């Protein structure tokens, strides 16, 4: 679970969002929707980030600079090493019965949609992707998604790019299942707007990230769950809203 990974690239995608790729043993990662936990110099708790993409000896994360930890990461250079806990959380369940899944990502909830999109495409699904951002300057990964699937819609809250509105605005898409990740108000809107079952990825302040401290527990219809171990992905039917 614990690995030392080496930074391959680290570059800005927007003025505050960065993409970092790393090399090293990633065998513990079992699927999209899982996360990793970074140990950073001089900071006590690790910083959790979703897996954006992974492969053999390869990991990619996308992060927004919001505080000390992400700030430190943004200044790191290729060749530098990081202590990472890998393969944390349950991840998205890809065995569900769906032919036309819709993927809804908001802001820095977009990254986990990327590998998920790849995997669903490989499984022969007809995937629709909708990504929501506040404004044009914040949009990232449109091209990357378009290289995997045709149906990629970008929404901006202020209408400065793509379609104006939220990921759930003018929701007339054809879909039979939902995969989503984003800020909680967005997840709630998705929960209320969509009519099918789906999988929702949550965030919580974490102590350990691997189920030991009970720092991240939430109540669900299926009992208490640790977001880090029994989540971060919950199915729509168990969410209490």
């Amino acid at each position, binding site marked *: 679970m614990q690995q030392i990974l080496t930074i391959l690239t680290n570059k800005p995608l927007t003025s505050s969002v960065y993409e970092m790729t790393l090399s090293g043993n990633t065998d513990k990662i079992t699927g999209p929707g899982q996360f990793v936990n970074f140990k950073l110099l001089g900071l006590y*708790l690790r910083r959790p980030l979703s897996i954006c993409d992974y492969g053999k000896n390869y990991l990619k994360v996308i992060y927004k600079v919001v505080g000390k930890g992400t700030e430190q990461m943004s200044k790191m250079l290729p060749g530098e090493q990081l202590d990472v806990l890998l393969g944390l959380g349950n991840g998205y369940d890809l065995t569900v019965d769906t032919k036309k899944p819709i993927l809804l990502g908001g802001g820095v909830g977009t990254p986990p949609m990327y590998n998920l999109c790849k995997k669903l495409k490989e499984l022969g699904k007809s995937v629709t992707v909708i990504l929501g951002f506040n404004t044009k300057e914040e949009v990232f990964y449109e091209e990357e998604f378009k290289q995997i699937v045709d149906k990629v819609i970008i929404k901006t809250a202020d209408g400065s790019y793509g379609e104006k509105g939220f990921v759930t605005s003018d929701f007339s898409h054809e879909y039979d299942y939902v995969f989503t990740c984003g800020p909680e108000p967005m997840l709630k809107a998705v929960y209320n707007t969509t009519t099918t079952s789906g999988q929702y990825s949550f965030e919580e302040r974490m102590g*350990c990230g691997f*189920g030991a*401290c009970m720092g991240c*527990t939430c109540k669900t219809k299926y009992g208490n769950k640790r977001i880090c*171990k029994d989540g971060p992905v919950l199915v729509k039917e168990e969410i209490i809203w």
Partner: protein
Amino acid sequence: MVDLKVNLAGLVLDNPIVPASGTFGYGEEFASLYDINILGSFSFKGTTAQERFGNPTPRIADCANGMLNSVGLQNPGVDYVCNTIMPKMKTYFNKPVVANIGGFSIEEYCECAKKVSECEQVGIVELNVSCPNVHGGGMGFGTDAKLVYNVTSAVKQNCKKPLFVKLTPNVTDIKSIAKACEDAGANGVTLINTMLGMRINLNTRKPILAMRAGGYSGKAVFPVAIRMINDVYNTIKLPIMGCGGVETAEDVIEMMLAGATAVQVGSANLINPFVCKEIIQDLPIVCKKYKIKKLSDIIGGVNG
């Protein structure tokens, strides 16, 4: 060969390393990472008479050299622990375990102690007196020598295993509290529990923790723990399980010099899940460096 064995109120541990309550669950997550039978023992998650969800989230805040938690004793309740978790624990841990119990009244503590001490695998019962007393206006049991005496002597009568009282550092005079434990018939004390702390989010100007304040633990509390352990060592004759900010084999030796017989490792497990394994591997090497042949010889060995 360095002798790492220690005798904790009659229970002989292969080494003094005991993961602290609340940072090691019931051991299962760690057993999937390494063979936890290398540990001296471990103290399981604070267990109460009734199942508890605990406090609202956020329950965790990052700090310089430490963390705050306000988990609020989330646990599945003593019956579930005794009937479901303990039978399973045997499959991944084959040594006596430390049963940490919490409570909000003397009756609850007694019920819990009675039940856990009847479990075969429980070697020591550890009484967490840092909980608020619902019958005493919510004041922490552990902050008043008389209350500590009352709860300890009542629990002792219901406890079939050696009883350790886990002390809170949030007191003016730790010695009088430790003395009350000894007078009440405890077999040992564990210290320290977390220190009260608080953080504020600058953007929202709200406390980071939903409960406003929480318990501070981790590297930063180490010197506080060392001082309190030494104070208690100089005051009572009972064995001490030291706890607070331990991260390395050197820290273990320092804590034992202060007076600890066993050493608990808490928050460090959350950051480096392999920390206890690494400390146990390092101990013989560090002992050699400081010319220690028998680790138990150094307990309380600080000069001056």
